[in-house]
Every structure is written in structure tokens, then in C-alpha cells.
């Protein structure tokens, strides 16, 4: 049966973005073979600098799946990174600086969650506010200075969290000796979070909350508490990203998180997570992040400027969102087709997407 085969094919998680990523990377291999046909772009470049983006996008997948948004994570990166850099460099606290940075992320995320779930501020507004606040706090604490972490390569913090895997001889520059430790951490966290979203009670609750807060309450989901956990988790992931960034750059600067706001959100939505919540794919997000990431070297190698990269990212983002909108919402798709006078069914039967309106009183 045609539909059975089609639905089995369509059931591969993140399929559209996987296809598009493969096509675009294939295209880059043709336009910039010197870059994209060599392993280094994927191993030493991507695996050492893309993990923060992928982690942030994975966290945002949960947030968007719940029908919420977090705009404060770039500032969490700023503040947690600042906490880490100052405690590490000025106070020589080593691993305690790591714990402090993680704790800062958890605390900020928790506050976001309380503002959204208990105080009832829409997350868009709440996290916009806390984003300003913590960005200011980070600048205040760091005095607006950047902190270079010279000699950090020799510490256990660096070697365990970032740096290269101890395989092969790094001096020979074979590709597998260039695989970064943070890529391994990132992969472990992402795989774990895939199971949380798809196999854990928390993930199921997040999907139902994104579907409808009212339905979730009625079936016994503690909506407020799950949302607090959600924003707390996002805070923690942002803190991990901050530590990775600061260590990888061997430098802290206040704006290090700002570039991630649009790219991380774009990665999630390009990946196929629904902008309306209730439906999410971490596989899609990872491919979305890889695509967003590789567009820069890909376009630059083809002679494009930074502005062009931005324009192209914006375009891909919009095209993807529109594509999923019409894929996911049969009623919308039919309305569009109808506008162009394309008949999809015989007879004047009304589309199945339009159900008789149910009384919604008393919900």
C-alpha cells in the first residue's frame, strides 16, 4: 500500500532535514571541495566548536516542544561563563569554579521557571527580562573585561572537559587525533536527552504541555513543576555551553553567548520541532544545528561574505518554518491548495481537517 510505505518512510525521525543537510553538504563538496572533501572541517573544526550550539539547541527543543521559549540563554552563557572565568582565574578554584558556573545556570533557569509557571508571565517576556538582567549582572561583575585563561591547557579541568581525545599523535594532525573531548560530552548528553524526551515521563509531560496546558492538567500532569524543571534544565545546558566555550577559546568575554540566540532557535525549527509545541525531534535539531553551522564555512569558501551567510541562514530558516507549517497542519495545507484552486478530493465533501466545533465552555 502506498500510504503504508509512505508513513513508514515518513516515520524516520527528522527525515526532511536529514535529506536537506545531505544535499547541502553535497553541494558544498562540489563548490568547495578543498574544504568539504577533507575530514578536518568535520573533526577538528566542527566537533570542537559546534558542541555548545548543539547543546543549546537540544535544550531549546524541549522548551519549544512545551510551547514556551527561552530568550535568556545567551545571558546565562554570559553570566555562568563570567562566574567560571573569575573564580577559575582570579581565585584559582579549579573544579569548584565549574560547579559554581553550573549552579549559576541552574539557579537562573529555576528563576525563569518560577516566573513563567508560578507568577504566570509569558516566557517570551519573562526571559527577555531576565536576559537583560543577567547580562547586566555579568558585565557588572566582570567590569566589562575579558579574561584570558593562559596556561589552562595544563589543568585537569581543561583536559577532562575540552581538549582533544588522547588517541593518535596530535602532532601528526591525522583527523582522528583532532576529535575534541567536548564533542564526546555533547554526544553523551544529547543521546541521554533523546531518551528523556522520547522515553521518559518528563519528556512525555513536556509534549502534552506543548499540546495543551489544560489537557495536561486534566490528565494529572503537574504543569507548573514540569515547566520549572524545563527552564532549570535549559539553564544547566546553557551553563555547560558557557564552560565549553570559555575553555575552548581559553578566554571569557561578555558577549560570547549573544551569537547563539538566533542560530540555536533556527536549528530547532529547521529540524522540524513544531513552533506550536507538542511535537519535537532531537535528531532533527542536531541536523538543523549542523546545517546552520556548516553554512558559514560553506558559503565563505564559495566566496560569500558574513552578511551573505546571515541572509542565507535567515532564508533557510524561513523556508523551513513555512515548509513544516504546511506539512504539520493539514487544514492549513488544504486551505493553501484551495486558494490556488487545486482540488485534492473528489466531490464537495468538507475537508477532514475541519471538524464540527466542539463546545469549549467550562474548560
Amino acid at each position, binding site marked *: 500500500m502506498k500510504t503504508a510505505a509512505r508513513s513508514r518512510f515518513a516515520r524516520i525521525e527528522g527525515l526532511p532535514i536529514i535529506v536537506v543537510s545531505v544535499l547541502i553538504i553535497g553541494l558544498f563538496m562540489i563548490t568547495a571541495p578543498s574544504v568539504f572533501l577533507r575530514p578536518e572541517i568535520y573533526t577538528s573544526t566542527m566537533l570542537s566548536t559546534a558542541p555548545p550550539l548543539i547543546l543549546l539547541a537540544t535544550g531549546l527543543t524541549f522548551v519549544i516542544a512545551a510551547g514556551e521559549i527561552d530568550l535568556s540563554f545567551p545571558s546565562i552563557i554570559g553570566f555562568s561563563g563570567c562566574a567560571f572565568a573569575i573564580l577559575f582565574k582570579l581565585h584559582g578554584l579549579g573544579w569548584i569554579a565549574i560547579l559554581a558556573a553550573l549552579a549559576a545556570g541552574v539557579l537562573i533557569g529555576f528563576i525563569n521557571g518560577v516566573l513563567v509557571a508560578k507568577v504566570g508571565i509569558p516566557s517570551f517576556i519573562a526571559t527577555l527580562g531576565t536576559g537583560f538582567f543577567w547580562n547586566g549582572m555579568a558585565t557588572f561583575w566582570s567590569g566589562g573585561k575579558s579574561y584570558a585563561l593562559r596556561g589552562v591547557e595544563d589543568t585537569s579541568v581543561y583536559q577532562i572537559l575540552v581538549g582533544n581525545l588522547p588517541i593518535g599523535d596530535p602532532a601528526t594532525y591525522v583527523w582522528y587525533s583532532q576529535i575534541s573531548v567536548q564533542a564526546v560530552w555533547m554526544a553523551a548528553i544529547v543521546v541521554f536527552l533523546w*531518551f528523556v524526551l522520547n*522515553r*521518559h*515521563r*518528563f519528556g*512525555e*509531560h513536556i*509534549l*502534552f504541555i506543548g*499540546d*495543551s496546558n*489544560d*489537557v*495536561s*492538567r*486534566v*490528565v*494529572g*500532569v*503537574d504543569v507548573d513543576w514540569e515547566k520549572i524543571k524545563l527552564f532549570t534544565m535549559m539553564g544547566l545546558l546553557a551553563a555547560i555551553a558557557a564552560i565549553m566555550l570559555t575553555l575552548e577559546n581559553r578566554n571569557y568575554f561578555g558577549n560570547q553567548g549573544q551569537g547563539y540566540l538566533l542560530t540555536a532557535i533556527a536549528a530547532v525549527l529547521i529540524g522540524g520541532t*513544531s513552533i506550536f509545541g*507538542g*511535537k519535537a525531534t532531537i535528531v532533527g535539531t542536531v541536523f538543523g544545528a549542523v546545517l546552520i553551522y556548516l553554512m558559514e564555512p560553506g558559503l565563505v569558501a564559495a566566496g560569500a561574505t558574513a552578511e551573505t551567510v546571515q541572509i542565507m541562514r535567515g532564508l533557510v530558516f524561513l523556508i523551513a518554518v513555512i515548509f513544516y507549517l504546511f506539512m504539520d497542519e493539514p487544514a492549513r495545507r488544504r486551505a493553501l491548495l484551495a486558494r490556488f484552486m487545486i482540488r485534492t478530493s473528489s466531490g464537495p465533501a468538507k475537508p477532514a481537517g475541519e*471538524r*464540527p466545533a*466542539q*463546545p*469549549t*465552555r*467550562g*474548560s
Partner: protein
Amino acid sequence: MTAAMAESASFANIVRLAGVQKYFGAVHALRNINMAVGRNEIVGLIGDNGAGKSTLIKTITGVHKPTSGRIFVRDKEIDLDAYSVGKAHDLSIETVYQDKSLGEKQPLWRNFFVGRQIVNRFGFIDVKKEKEIANDILLNTIGFRGVGISVDSTVQLLSGGERQGISIGRAMHFNSDLIILDEPTAALGVKEVRKVLDFVRRIKESGRASIYIEHNLAHVHEVADRLIVLDRGEIVAEIRPSEMTVAELTKYLINIQHER
């Protein structure tokens, strides 16, 4: 569930409300409600749109906290501050809501178990087992055979009747002592209405209780042991259907309306 069943001999009323009031801001949705449901009684709840029927049952199921008043389950008073939907489930109270009680974009198997998933001690769901049970409910309890609906189908693809079937199948599976039905026949075809009424009868036969909200008087009259009439948040009459025909009942209700 089993613990609740074991105690079943020792109580008279599965649920009793005493002086329950509910305000939504300035809206006085429930006024001094006193009512009880026997442990093997089908109580029909009738009244106009906005009378407060849904609000009343949502206080029983832990969705809304009453502004004041007391609620007893199996003759024991419950702590309303700690009451919740989860607690109501634990007390073996199950609801089929009039408006959506299913996650639209979620597969059926998740909808059957959400809120009380089969999990290991780390909270990870036993997907295989949940799907097996869901499939069994689908085939044997609800009787969806050969209609192209599987446990992986999402709710948004189902018709209104099929949705009601899913909710009812869920209630039946969890074997509750009190099953609350909020307009389960709304937007259903004749055949599906029959199924729902049969289900209400089965609740009675199996020794359990039900509160059944319904606008169609013929339907409640057919299955209820007792009817409670709600008007603007107040109980205004209690009727035994055996003492009146449907026509008399209709007239009686119209008269009540005029008097007030």
C-alpha cells in the same frame, strides 16, 4: 485500585459534597452544593449551559479547588489543599471530559497512560508494555477493529466519536470506582450513543458508580438512578426517573425554570 476495591464494603457513598462553593473571580459558579453519590449509583446531572455542571465535577476530580466546603470520598474527608488530579486517580476516580481531555498531537498509547505511565524506578517509560496494553484496549475494550487506527495514530486524526471511545476505554481500563462522564455523547452518531449508554449500564452492573452529565433527557432518563438538577450554580431538584416519564420530566424542568 485494588486497595480501593478491598475497602468497598465499608462505605456508603463513593463521594459526598458538603457546602461546596466555587468562585471564579466574581462569578459564583457553585452555590452551597450538598450532594452524595452512592457506591453503586448512577447519578444524572442536568442543567442549562453554564449551570456549573462541569465545574462541579472538576472540584470532585481535583482540577478546581473549591473556594469553601468539604468533600468526602468513601466517607472520608479529603484534604483539599493537597488534592489533585493525581490524587483523584489514586482514589480511583476517573473522568471522561466533554471538552478535550486528549493530547491532540500525541499517539494514542501515550494518551492512555499519560499521568500514570508504566515506568522503571528512574522514570523511564516501558514503551513496549504500554503499547501492548493500549493495543488490547483498542481492540477489546473499545472495539476499534479494522478501522485503520493503531496505537501510533495521533488523536488529531480521529473523529469525535472515536475520541470519546478512547477516553471511555481509558476509564474502563483503569477500572475506576467512580467514572464521571461529562457529555460523552455530544457530537456522536446514533450508534455511538448506544455504545456509550451500554457502557454506563456496564458501570452499574459491575458494582461501580457514575456521575453522568447529559443535555439529552432521554439518554439520562434511560440509565440514571437519580437525577440532580443544577441551575445557576445551585441544586434545585432531585428526581427519580422511575417516577416520571421523559415527557413529564421535560415539563417539570421547564416549570422549574419559569418559577425561578
